[in-house]
Every structure is written in structure tokens, then in C-alpha cells.
């Protein structure tokens, strides 16, 4: 038992020393039904899967599609979307399609004019909230006109604009660590109109960074909208 405790302590120290990146413990969602919490209000776009269904076979570690709506996510009453119309920067400041401000413009539709497309290979976008807040949920929509699975999705928080220190990794499904941010253990998932919600667990941060590296259908990264709920 003593030996195990020492190993855990050493592992924790190594994690702190290795670039200050930390993975939030996988606890139950903030929406645990605690007193003083209320469902966050997420306005969903129109569901729209069109055209030839895409080939989703051969994707490892794919989350089963329950085909049920996401349960309400509880957070302290009064939290709101802090990302609306904030500044967005990216690994590709001049996207293939669209402009970066569209990622936080409130338009979540999957129509052609609402999608920001970044090039192949690893890409990221950062939303600057303008100040440090307590964050409870990150909700993002890559693309939901067809069922797609985006690759190497990583969501990080920090108050360091360079994401060198004080980095919290909330979600990582980069199973082979091709981004070099650490081996991801989260599952791949099908992008849908309800977007992907990641529990931010009340972490304090100013910047939200989302990574991706193409999808099962093509090698581009797409972002329709990012919402950051906090106070």
C-alpha cells in the first residue's frame, strides 16, 4: 500500500513537472444535481443530415450514438455564454472558408455560409474571453450537415495566451498522440446538431483552445460555433 502511494506521488510530481499540463480528474459532470444549479441554456440549430451518409466504419473508440438528446447540464445559476463575439485566433488566420469571427457569432447552422474551414494537418482555434472566469461548460460544433467524426479533438483551458503554463486539458481523443499533447483517452464521437459539450468543472481560465486534425471524410478542420459557459 505504501509502495502504491509513493508511486502515485511520483507520478503526480512528474505530471506537474512536465509542462504544467494537467488533465482534470474524470469526475461526474458538474451537472450532478447539486443545490443552486440550473440547466445551462443552449440554443440548438436545426438538425440536418443530408446527402449520402458518410462511411463511419473503421473508426476506433467511437462513442455509441444513443440517438437521444443530451441530458440537461447543470451549472451555477446565472452562467452565460462568455464567448459570443469575443476575439478568435487560429493556427490559420486566413481560413480556407469563412472568417474566424464566425466561430463566436452565435450562428450554429450547418449551412455553407456558417462554417469556418481550416486546412489539413493539425489546427487550433483560441477564444480569448477577455478576462479570467470560472468556466463550467465548453460547447462546440464542428460540422453537422452530415454525420462526421473529427480527429484529434483536444480542448484546453489556460490563462496563459501561449498555453505554456497552467494548461488544463478537458478533453482529448488523440489516441496516438499525433498532436504531441499527450495520449488521449476520450472517445471519438459523431458531430451532431446538439454540438459536443465538455465539462469545464469550474476551472478558472481566460483562453479556450480547441485542436483538431481533419475528420473521417476529409482532412480539413471545421468550426461552426464555440460557446463557453461561465461566470
Amino acid at each position: 500500500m505504501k509502495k502504491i502511494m509513493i508511486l502515485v506521488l511520483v507520478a503526480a510530481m512528474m505530471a506537474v513537472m512536465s509542462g504544467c499540463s494537467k488533465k482534470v480528474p474524470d469526475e461526474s459532470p458538474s451537472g450532478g444535481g447539486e443545490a443552486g444549479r440550473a440547466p445551462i441554456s443552449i440554443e440548438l440549430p436545426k438538425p440536418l443530415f443530408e446527402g449520402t451518409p458518410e462511411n463511419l466504419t473503421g473508426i476506433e473508440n467511437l462513442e455509441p450514438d444513443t440517438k437521444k438528446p443530451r441530458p440537461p447540464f447543470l451549472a451555477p445559476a446565472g452562467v452565460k455564454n462568455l464567448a459570443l463575439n469575443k476575439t478568435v485566433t487560429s493556427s490559420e488566420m486566413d481560413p480556407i472558408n469563412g472568417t474566424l469571427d464566425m466561430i463566436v457569432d452565435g450562428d450554429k447552422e450547418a449551412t455553407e455560409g456558417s462554417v469556418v474551414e481550416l486546412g489539413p494537418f493539425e489546427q487550433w482555434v483560441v477564444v480569448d474571453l477577455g478576462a479570467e472566469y470560472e468556466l463550467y461548460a465548453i460547447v462546440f460544433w464542428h460540422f453537422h450537415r452530415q454525420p462526421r467524426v473529427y480527429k484529434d479533438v483536444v480542448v484546453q483551458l489556460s490563462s496563459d495566451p501561449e498555453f505554456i503554463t497552467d494548461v488544463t486539458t478537458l478533453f482529448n481523443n488523440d489516441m496516438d498522440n499525433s498532436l504531441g499533447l499527450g495520449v488521449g483517452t476520450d472517445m471519438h464521437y459523431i458531430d451532431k446538431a446538439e454540438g459536443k459539450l465538455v465539462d469545464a468543472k469550474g476551472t478558472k481560465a481566460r483562453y479556450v483552445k480547441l485542436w483538431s486534425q481533419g475528420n473521417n471524410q476529409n482532412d480539413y478542420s471545421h468550426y461552426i460555433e464555440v460557446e463557453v459557459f461561465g461566470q
Partner: protein
Amino acid sequence: MVYQLNRRQFLRTSTAIGAGLYVSGKALGADAKHKDVINVALLGAGAQGQVLMDAILKKMDPGIRFVAVCDIWEAGNLRKVSRRLKSWEKIGHKGTPYTDYREMLDTEKDLDAVIVATPDFWHSEHTVACLEKGLHVYCEKEMSNTLEGARKMVEARNASGKLLQIGHQRRSNPRYRHCYDKLIQDAGLIGRITTINGQWNRSKASCEDRALSEKETPIDEATLNKYGFKNMHQFLNWRWFKGLGGGPIVDLGSHQIDIYSWFLGCNPKSVIASGGVDYWTGHEWYDTVMAVYEYETAAGPVRAFYQTGTTNSSRGYFESFMGDQGTLTISEDPKVGGVYREGWILEEQWDQWVQGGYVLKPKGAPVFKGDDDAEAVLDPRATVPPDLYTLPVTMNVPYHQPHLMNFFNTIRGTETLNCPAEIGYESAVSVLRVNEAVAQNRRLEFKPEDFHI
């Protein structure tokens, strides 16, 4: 995540090949170059053109290089796709943009092949022009919206000596190839085929008209008119308009009706059909079509039903071939596919096909699920549901990729086309006549010579 070729490995490979080509191109001449590198242009950069381009790019074949793209929507499709190709510049692609295909063909002297993915009514002119320039062509289905247009394409292919592949991509899909080569041709697994049933049903939500968003810049009216479109709405939804496309029976049905003829080894002898603009407004082509073909095969007559609907996606899309010994169901959807053995065929008779890798043995007999009513009893007149044998072949790449690679590998001399122009023509004859049968409200007969040029 790395699904196929590691990108870093690819970059190293393509750089090495590029360097080698620089030397070999100088030392060995153009013929040597053409064995390894195929310079490609995309003509028509809309949704389907993008699907084809991305399927090629995803293959990461260092010998296939995009060099140019042409589309009349300069601020939309053309801008997007040329910028997409530019983002691949470091591994050898480029996307010089053109709005005039003739200018592209005149300017791009090193082209080897063109992917034609324009609206159906442009296929013939574009394909013929490319072939006359000495280029190989991969043309999306439907080959043309008219048989006259399709005929000109075959004639141009014959005159040019170049390749013309039509985009009936199931013909290169390894699951379909397995069904045809192994289960039908080799094993005759389902016995004598007597009936076929197929469908492609799409939900209302996925059949809504494409609308221009506020953030998109439309094509000016003069340009639209010059290229045969009345307005931007028609440009974005051309499949629904007569003279431009053929409606769902052509867009969707042609893929599957093509498989009917392929698997049966013959073309239909007649068709009756019912259809109409039943649900949508502002459309010219039928949104709902049901057709029945008759075939006269060497083994006997076959009747084949096909339906396409645009209001309800029930059971999606598949083709089901029913023989006197079993039923083969196949779909481009990789989740759908397998063979049912008829109950009177002994399991032992099929063990050889399991052992030979033709099919995978059922994991368990299907369980009869009656309704919850305790009074319900199994009807003794009903046949016990047969066992489902699954297919041992998977398909993990974009649907169009194997067919495109079949085209490129035929240029390289290592394969032969799976859907050359004359096959595409036969399919066009079968499919385009469904709309005629609906309009004339009568049975139409095919003569053998209808399928030949």
C-alpha cells in the same frame, strides 16, 4: 489520429518522389513521367466535386497531383476549392482557379486527366472537350441527362483513345466486387435470381432545397444565364430541374439500377413506372418514383422493383437480390449487407462457402419476436426466418476512393476500368427511360440495340 498513411511518412515519400521526378523527367522524358505522376484538374467544384477531390487527397497517393480547378461560381465553390488545394501545396498540389473550362484546358499544358463533376447537362460538352484535348476523363454519373449527350461521349472516347470512366462507384467497391465475383459468379450462392428489390429513401430534412446564405456571394445573373441557369436557386438545386438534371431516380437510382444489370449480366427488356411531384413545390422532376423492370436472363425472367422517395428515410438504401436458394442484400452503407440462406437448403451445403471465405457464419439463429400480446401465436403458415451470413469484406475508405483509384491505376496501366463509357451508357439508357415511362404512363420496351452505339 492516423487512419491511413502517416502524414510525416507521406511528406518524406512525396518529397523523395518529387526529387526523383525532377531527375527522371529531365533524363527520361515525358513518357517516363506519365508512369508515375498524373496531373489532374477538377472541372466542377460543387459538393460532389469536393467529395471526389477529398477522396483522392485522402488517399495520399504521391503520384496524383491536382493542378487546377474550374467552376463558374468564383466567390463560392471556386474560391473554396482552390484554397483547399493551396493548403496542400507543400505536398505538391496546386489549385490554379479558372471560371472558363476552355481557358483551363488551353492553359494547363501538363494535364493528364480531368475529373468532371459539373451538373449533368454539362457532362457531355465538358467530357468531349477534355477527350478531344487528349485527356483521360472521370465523369460523374449520370453520364449525361440525354442519351444523345451520352452517345457523343462514347464516340469521343473512341476517337481519342483515352480513358473515360463513369462514376458508378459501387463497381469498384470491394464489398460489391466480392458479392459479384465470389457470391454470384463463382459460388452462385443464392441460386437462380428471380426478383430484385431496391430503394433509396431520404428524409424530408435531407431533401430541403439548398438556399444561399446571407454570407455567400451569388453568381451574377448574366453568368448564370450564360451557363444555362435561370437564377441562383436553380444553380444550387439543378438536380430538380428538367433539362439540367434528372431528379432522384437519376441521382440516386442510377447507382443501384446499374448494379441490377451488372449482377444479372444483362440489360432490362422493359420498364413500367409511377411517379410525381407529390410533396415538394417548385420542383420539376418527380420527388417520388417507383419502377418495375423486367429482365430476360440466361436462367430465366427476373422482375426488379426500385423506389426512391424524398420524404421518409425508412430503411435507407440497399439492393436485395432474391434467388431460389438465398437472398443477397448489399448497400454502400457498410452496416448493411449479407446473405440469407433459404430454409430448405441444408446448412452443410453452405459450409464450403464459409470455409472458403465467401461468407461468415451466422452468429446465432434469429429469434422470433412476437408482439407482447400473450394470445399471439406463431403463424404456422409463415416461413421460419432464415440465417444471415455476413460478408467478410469491409470498406473503410471514402465511398468514391476505390473507383477513382481504379481510374488512376488504369492510366498507370495496372488495372482496367470498372465502369468504362459503354457501361455507363447502358446504365443511362436503363435509368433515363424511367422518367419517360412516368411521363407517358405506359410500359416502355427496350430493344437490345438501344444499349449499343
